[in-house]
Each structure stands twice: as structure tokens, then as C-alpha cells.
């Protein structure tokens, strides 16, 4: 029957693991001990861990030490241990493990984790960030009507990129603190992919609006798509950063999405029909290449205007 002792950090994270194939273990500062701890607050012979011959349970005995033994923060002279009890002698924290108690089942390894390993490539992250800079510069160029100067435009676009960097950096720091591994490259690759994807969606949105002039339902569709993208992004960032049960991750991702979207949309809805001398319309014009759907006739447009009059008449009553 073996006794296993685990040296713990202050936050009870296991640091070191000792296994003894015997029925008792002496712990102290003396070199004769089975487990020698170099802690000035520990007596040369401080504690004896033994298996109780009758019950077969583990117990600790104080060997008349100066500073005593604390089990779960209570001083004891002798105690029978349960699993998960934390023992403190001097300034050292230990856990004594009963090898008979079965451990929890392993968390099934996610295929996704393997599938996402390609994100963790330095050259990919750098390439994607260059693509992002290029994209931002291109949209700035397309939005300009004056002579375009790349050098002048670059600082503001890099600044925008730096703002985006806050997200992957904070997840990397979180992961580093909790798990010691930051996965910063994956986080950055993920960020740039999402930035490019969202910009692609915006382009699609413009083309759709320009061609079909959708009604109010389109705003809801936009909301659903945007929320989904945000939720997936948060979920993946969490997935890369931390090992969590899926349920927990889902809940965190959904609640973070709500926290991000709720203020934007409530403000939007509160402001929606404030009086303005300027009408709210979509001014998007796209070159003939993107003009996919066919146009209607003047007569039809005038016919439709009839219902517009009814619509504004209804506003009077409110």
C-alpha cells in the first residue's frame, strides 16, 4: 500500500508529487526523513503520516513540533484524513492522497483542439495580420476622393489594428495566468480571421441591401448573424485559452455575447424614432458589376408610393 504526498502551491496547484511504497512516512527538515522539506518553520521531525491498521484510512500525527499541523486550517495533534484535505506544516502546503479512491473519468479529448492546431503557426498569424493591414488600407483608399498617400494613411490604420490586439492579448494573459500557456499565436490568428470574415459579411450586406432593398426584417437578420459571429468568436477564444467543460464555455460565450450586444441594441431601439429633419435611408450605391437584380418601372414605383402615404398618416395618430 502506497502513500502519495503532493506538494502544493499557495493556490493549491500541485507542484510536486512523491510516492512512498511503505505504510508510514516521516516528514520534517531532518535529512533522515522520508520526505525532507526545506522550510525553516518545520521541525527536524515534524509529522508522521501513516495508514491506520484498523480502518485502512490515512492519518497524520504531530511529532511534538513547534508550529504544529493544520488540517484545513485547523490545528490538530492527530487526525484521520479525507481526500482533498489540505495540510499545512510551517509554510508548506501538502495534500496526502489515498490511492484507493478512484479518480474522475478523463474529459474526452476534443477533436476540435487538434483541428485548430493550424492556427498556432507564427507565419500564419503574421500573414493574416498583413492581409488585415492591406484590407484596411484598401478600404481607406476606396473611401477617399483625394490623392491617396499610403504613408499618411498607415498610422491610423495601424492604430485601429492595435485596438483589435487588445482582445487576443487579454485572452492570452488570462490563459497564461490560469494555465501557464498563453496560445497567443492562435489567439491572434483567430482575431484576424474574424476581422476579415466580418468585413466580408459587411460587403455581402451592402450587395444584398443595394439589390433587394429589404424591409425591417433585414435588421433582425443582421442582428442574428452578428450575434452568432460574436458568440462563436468568444467561444473559440475561450476554447483556445482555457480547458473548460463544454457547458460552462457555452454559458460564458452566450452571456458575454449578450453583455456586448444588449447595450448596443437597446440604445439603438431607444433612439430609433426620435424626430429628425433628415430621413433615415440607405445611401449605398454600387457599380454596375454588383447590380444583379432587375429594376422596376416608374409606374410601379408611383403605385407603391400610395402605401407610403398611408404609412406616414399612421404616424400622426401616435
Amino acid at each position, binding site marked *: 500500500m502506497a502513500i502519495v504526498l503532493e506538494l502544493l502551491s499557495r493556490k493549491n496547484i500541485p507542484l510536486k508529487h512523491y510516492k512512498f511504497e511503505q505504510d508510514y512516512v516521516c516528514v520534517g527538515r531532518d535529512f533522515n526523513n522520508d520526505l525532507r522539506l526545506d522550510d525553516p518553520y518545520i521541525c527536524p521531525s515534524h509529522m508522521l503520516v501513516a495508514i491506520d491498521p484498523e480502518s485502512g484510512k490515512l492519518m497524520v500525527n504531530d511529532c511534538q513540533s513547534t508550529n504544529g499541523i493544520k488540517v484545513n486550517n485547523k490545528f490538530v495533534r492527530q487526525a484521520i484524513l479525507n481526500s482533498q484535505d489540505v495540510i499545512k506544516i510551517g509554510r508548506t502546503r501538502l495534500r496526502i492522497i489515498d490511492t484507493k479512491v478512484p479518480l474522475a473519468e478523463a474529459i474526452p479529448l476534443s477533436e476540435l483542439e487538434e483541428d485548430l492546431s493550424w492556427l498556432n503557426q507564427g507565419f500564419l498569424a503574421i500573414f493574416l495580420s498583413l492581409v488585415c493591414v492591406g484590407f484596411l488600407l484598401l478600404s481607406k483608399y476606396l473611401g477617399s476622393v483625394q490623392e491617396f498617400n499610403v504613408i499618411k494613411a498607415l498610422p491610423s490604420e495601424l492604430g485601429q489594428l492595435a485596438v483589435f490586439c487588445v482582445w487576443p492579448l487579454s485572452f492570452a494573459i488570462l490563459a497564461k495566468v490560469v494555465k501557464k500557456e498563453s496560445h497567443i499565436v492562435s489567439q491572434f490568428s483567430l482575431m484576424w480571421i474574424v476581422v476579415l470574415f466580418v468585413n466580408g459579411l459587411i460587403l455581402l450586406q451592402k450587395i444584398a441591401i443595394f439589390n433587394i432593398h429589404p424591409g425591417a426584417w433585414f435588421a433582425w437578420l443582421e442582428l442574428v448573424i452578428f450575434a452568432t459571429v460574436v458568440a462563436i468568436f468568444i467561444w473559440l477564444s475561450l476554447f483556445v485559452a482555457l480547458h473548460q467543460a463544454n457547458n460552462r464555455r457555452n454559458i460564458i460565450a452566450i452571456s458575454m455575447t449578450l453583455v456586448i450586444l444588449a447595450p448596443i441594441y437597446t440604445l439603438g431601439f431607444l433612439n430609433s424614432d426620435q424626430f429628425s429633419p*433628415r430621413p433615415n435611408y440607405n445611401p449605398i450605391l454600387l457599380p454596375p458589376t454588383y447590380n444583379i437584380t432587375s429594376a422596376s418601372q416608374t409606374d410601379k414605383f408611383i403605385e407603391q408610393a400610395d402605401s407610403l402615404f398611408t404609412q406616414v398618416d399612421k404616424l400622426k395618430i401616435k
Partner: protein
Amino acid sequence: MLAPLNIIVTGTLNLRILLFMLTVFCSLAHSQQTAQNLFGQHRTALYQIKIIELESGNKSSIGSGFQIDSSGNVVTNYHVVSEYVYNPDKFRIEYLAYDGSEGQLQLVDVDVVNDLALVRKVTLSEQESAFPIAQSLPLQGSAIYSLGNPHDLGMIVVPGTFNGLKKSSFYQRIHFTGSINPGMSGGPVVNELGEVVGVNVATAGNQIGFLIPLAKIQGLLKSQDAQVLKNNQLKPRIQEQLLVNQNKLFSLLNNHPWETSELGEAIIPSKITDFISCWGGSNTSDKEALYLSVENRCQLDEQIYLHSGLRTGGLEVEFEWLDGESLGEHRFYNFYSQSITGAGAGNIASKNDVTNFRCQQDKVTNIHNVTNKTLLCLRAYKEFEQLYDVLFVAATLDHAYRGLISHYTLSGVSKESTLIFTRKFMDSIEWQ
């Protein structure tokens, strides 16, 4: 002080000028003589009109007015009494006569289109004097005299020159060379015989004044014997006048083919009527611009004043030709989108007067095979049935880096006029 008047002075800028200029007027000895006579003769029929706010018991705005008959009817400007018209429970109208006597006035009728109002003295004195109304307008260049009470300084007389009716205007005004100031609104303008030929209404500064012409005053005199308007009759009366006015305006606009001209590669309706003033401009002098922009704008010179936050009866038509060959397709269309962004109403209106705009947009091909992204926005008048403000924007989609933006705003129009005008406008654009 006096409610502001708005008049449009020069072309591209729609200047709203208040009666602000205070100028010392020098004139010939002869006209001074006449002026003295006129003033002595008619001062008893000349009043300062005060709008008294009931809460504070003090005047909130002032203007001038003149009596036209022995039954106590006084003519003034609509804009002088507009506060009362919009809030009859919160204001009352009073007059202050030359001899310092005061009294209350009742509203008999308004003519919002010509900015006139007829009020009546509640109590009459034993001897009432009145201004005679002229039979016809004087000859251009004749001396005429504007009377009124500028800035609450006391009654004055300003000699000036009659310069005919303002040319090409829908809302007719007399062009008066002489200075009119705030507070003189509603005062009479008389010829050398002391007969009324117009009513002070606005100034464009620098000795240019505008008067309501004789014919409009004669129109108002039909209500001389009418009953006093009840509070709930005010808005329907105004609505009726606005509807008639817009019918008149749009039947003039819609019932004849529009004159066209070339703008860039397009043919556009340039001057859709005589009484609209048009201005043009381009950016050709800007050497750094990567695109060409040529503009053509037309508008009615005047709008109808309803209250300090609401004007109506206006019309603006605007075309802009854009050519961005050196920009390329995508940059041009980005710029093109920006150019149609943020169009706003052509008239001032507050949220108590009108609803928010609602828009309809579509790609439309007209009878000349020109395809436009077309946008029609409307807002309804809350207090006047059947009247709307209209905003229209269209941008052609037929070229890769060239386009024509066409735009108009109408205020205070009916559904029927809007639809006829819009159809005519949309189908009037063609490629060369």
C-alpha cells in the same frame, strides 16, 4: 420682438434674413414734406400690434397694423399674430394707438399664403379713422411711404421708391427701395395721396424691402364683415388656404412640358417654370479634385411662414453631374454613395408640426431607359390633413464612374400633386 421673416436673397445660399438693418434714411426735402403731411393725417389709424403672453402679462412680440374701415378692422401681417394663432389660449392680441390708448383685438381672418391677418377692435371709440385703399399700384419709380413702429421706438415714416412687383416669383411681393425694420411688419405703405398700396413684410438689407401687394390686401377685405374666427376654426382655415395654394402651384408646374438642358451626359429638366430661380456651379476651378462635379439648382424664392418653427410651400430642385474617371469604379461609387448621404428636408418644421420621414427605395428604370436608385421620403403634417413634405433623391446606375444625382424637396403638398410631380420628374431624365 418681431417674428422673423424669411426671404431668399441670392442663388445658391438660401439666406433667411431677419428684419435687422437699422439705417438712417436721407431723402429729399419734397418727400419729407409729403411724409409729414401723411403722418399727421393718418397717425390715428396706425397701431402698434402687441402679442401679450397671458402668463407674464407682457408683450412677447410686436408689429404694426393699420385700420381700414370705421368698424374697427385692422390689417397686419400673419407672422405678427402667428403666436396667437398657434396658441390662442396662451396669448391675446392688443393694439397701442398713437395717443397711447390701448385695447384688445380679435382675429377675424388670416391669409397665411400672403402673410396677412385681419384683426378687429373689440371696443370702438366715437371717431374712428381709416386708411383708404388704392385702386391700382403706382408707376415704377413713384415715391411711396412705409409706416410702422421699428424696434418699439415709436411710429415713423420711411420714404422710398416703388420698384414694381418682384420679377418671377410665385408668392408676389412689391420691391420697395427703402429700409424696413423689425417691428414695422404689418405697417401700411401708402402712395402720395395716402392710399394703401402694400404692407411691410420683409427686407433683404441694404434698402431692399418687400411689401405685400395691393391685390392681396383687396382679397383679405372680403372678410371685412366676417365673424370673428373661433379657436377651432383657425387650423382648418389655414389648411384650406395651404391646399388651395399648393393646387395652384402644382397645376402651374405639372400642366406644361418642362424645358430641358444638358448637364454632363444627361438631359435634365432645367427650368421647370418661370417663377423659380436657378443657379449653377462646378468644381472645375479646384485643380486638385479627382472628379468633376457640375451642379444646377432651382428653388422658389419664398416659403410660407406658419410659426417660428414651421415654414412650408417651398420647392427646391437640384441636379448634380459627377464624373470620376480618374477615381476608378469602386472609389467613384464610394464617393457617389457619400454624395447622396444625409439629404434633409427643405423647410424648417418641429416635431409638433410634422411626423418623422418614412422612405421607399427601389431601382427604377424610366421611360427613357435611365436606371436610378430612387428614394422617396414623406412626412405628414400633424395638424393639417392631406399635406405632406416630400424629399426625393435618385442616382443613376448606368455608368461605371459617372452619374447624375437628381433631388427635390417639396413642402406642404397633397398626395395627388406629389405623385403627378414625382412621375413627371422621374420620367424627365434621359441620356444624350
